[in-house]
């Protein structure tokens, strides 16, 4: 069984990741994305040297759920801090200091605040990692011949094979017809 698992890890995945095409400017990439959406493709991804304002909307990406993760875990931090200060102050070490109550919101609020911030920060960072599927040591796009140019001056659009309308031949023709160059089917 272990052998089978190692074999699975070592065997490269088969099949097609999608069809990639290169564009030479932000505007031509944007136009290509809108044309592809109009054609009915839904599983699209773009690879660009810098973030492009409006690309998320153009691709039809849903807003990130990260904010909800952060507030949920942040409020867990609030609860943790209240429980911690209450337990320490009244159960584990009940000491009267300066005539103050064993537990009061006045002196525990800084701790409550700090733990809320700490939990929120962790949620934001690690939640972002999770949603971006990081760390990732291999990506199918490494197989694309123009991949290294993406960090320089190339704007790449991919119609992924996960798209219900995907057909490698038709996608290749379509991307060429809307002005894409270096149109290639990319292996998984």
């Amino acid at each position, binding site marked *: 069984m272990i052998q089978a698992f190692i074999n699975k890890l070592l065997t490269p995945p088969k099949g097609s990741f999608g069809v990639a095409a290169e564009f030479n400017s*932000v*505007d031509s990439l*944007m*136009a290509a994305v*809108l044309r592809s959406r109009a054609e009915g493709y839904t599983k699209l991804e773009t690879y660009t040297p810098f*973030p492009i*304002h*409006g*690309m998320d*909307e*153009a691709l039809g990406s849903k*807003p990130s759920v990260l*904010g909800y993760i952060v*507030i949920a875990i942040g409020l867990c931090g609030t609860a943790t801090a209240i429980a911690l200060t209450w337990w320490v102050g009244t159960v584990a070490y009940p000491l009267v200091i*300066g*005539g*103050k109550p064993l537990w009061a919101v*006045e*002196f525990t*609020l*800084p701790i409550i605040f700090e733990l809320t911030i700490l939990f929120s920060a962790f949620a934001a960072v690690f939640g972002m990692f999770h949603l971006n599927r990081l760390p990732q040591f291999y990506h199918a796009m490494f197989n694309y011949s123009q991949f290294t140019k993406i960090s320089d001056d190339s704007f790449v659009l991919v119609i992924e094979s996960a798209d219900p309308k995907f057909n490698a031949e038709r996608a290749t023709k379509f991307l060429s017809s809307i002005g894409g160059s270096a149109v290639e089917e990319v292996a998984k």
Partner: protein
Amino acid sequence: MAHDHHLDIPIDSFRLPSATWTHVRNVLVATTVVGWGACLAGYLQDHDQFSRSYLVAFLATIFMALGGMLFVMIQHLTNSAWSVTVRRFMESLMMSLPVGAILFIPIALNVHSLYVWSLPGGVAHFSGGKASYLNERFFVIRAFIYFLIWTALSWRLWAISRKQDETKSASLCYSAAKVSAPGVFFLFITATLAAFDWNMSINPHWYSTIYGVYCITGGAWGFFACLILICMRLRANGILTHSITVEHYHDLGKWQFALTAFWAYIAFSQYMLIWYANMPEETIYYKVRMEGTWRLLTLALPLIHFIFPFFLLIARPAKRTLSILSFISVYVLIVHYLDVYWMIMPNYAKSGIQFHWMDLAALVAVVGTFGFFFWQRLKDAPIVPEGDPRLAKSLRFHNV
């Protein structure tokens, strides 16, 4: 859509239509005259009540104008592009500050109704150190110095911005930043001292070093509400509809949200230190505010000034929905007034909250006067700093 903000942006007119301007001016003049008339009638009836109502109205408004100046400076210091299309309104609100010197006269003339230290034998209320600071002559001299500094800074910043309208010179951005860097420093020192003089010295025994920051934060909070409402009223009349978009409102909403949290941070810091030390000369501040109906307002403040606006504004869609943002802005202005009311009035009305018609009259008079001078600036000047090199970027601005 994504492509149209890259290519062609519809251009608004950057001038107010003169008919609109005159109409608003007339409304402002009419309400201000009515407000001052009511104030005069109230003053003849009851000096003390007028002075106190007037002080609340004055402080609620002047700290909003100071908030305006602070944020003009911050825009220059951070080289902000997003705020360029709303900056002229910030500057114009800032330019109502010099009028504060005239609006301060009723306070200077009624010192005896307001400050117990000014009464004969009042000096006996506190130890010698404060006596040399809290006396009528020095009080007025200090106020004069504050207004001198605020006037100099606001005139300078306005002059630079107006000059840029004509010359379109990028180097004027640096000139404005050079004024702003020491400006923020002087603004905080003078506004803190002003808060000590005008608010805190009502009870000459009590002290809190963070008090000035508390007042400035509250003022800046109200200032953003005011700015949002001005932009929205103009938008409703078809002015700057393409220049101040939902993206700009989103950022104004973020500031309002941030200042909600910051106010709570400052208010709680002050409260916690006083609670912990538990010294009578410090706890008296909260003691008098827990008497009678003041108790209700004291307990409500954390909820209405922090919890409710915080959770309302935390979601992204709330800041991008103009109806929610305009609701919260009106709400913020009301709560900001209540906060200032809560700072001042318990010193005089010890038994509980006693709203008086003069509170409203003074507010109308003061806000109307500030509003008139704010509006006066927009008569000839373009309502967007059209010479700013960052303007194109601001028009295309888009939140990620």
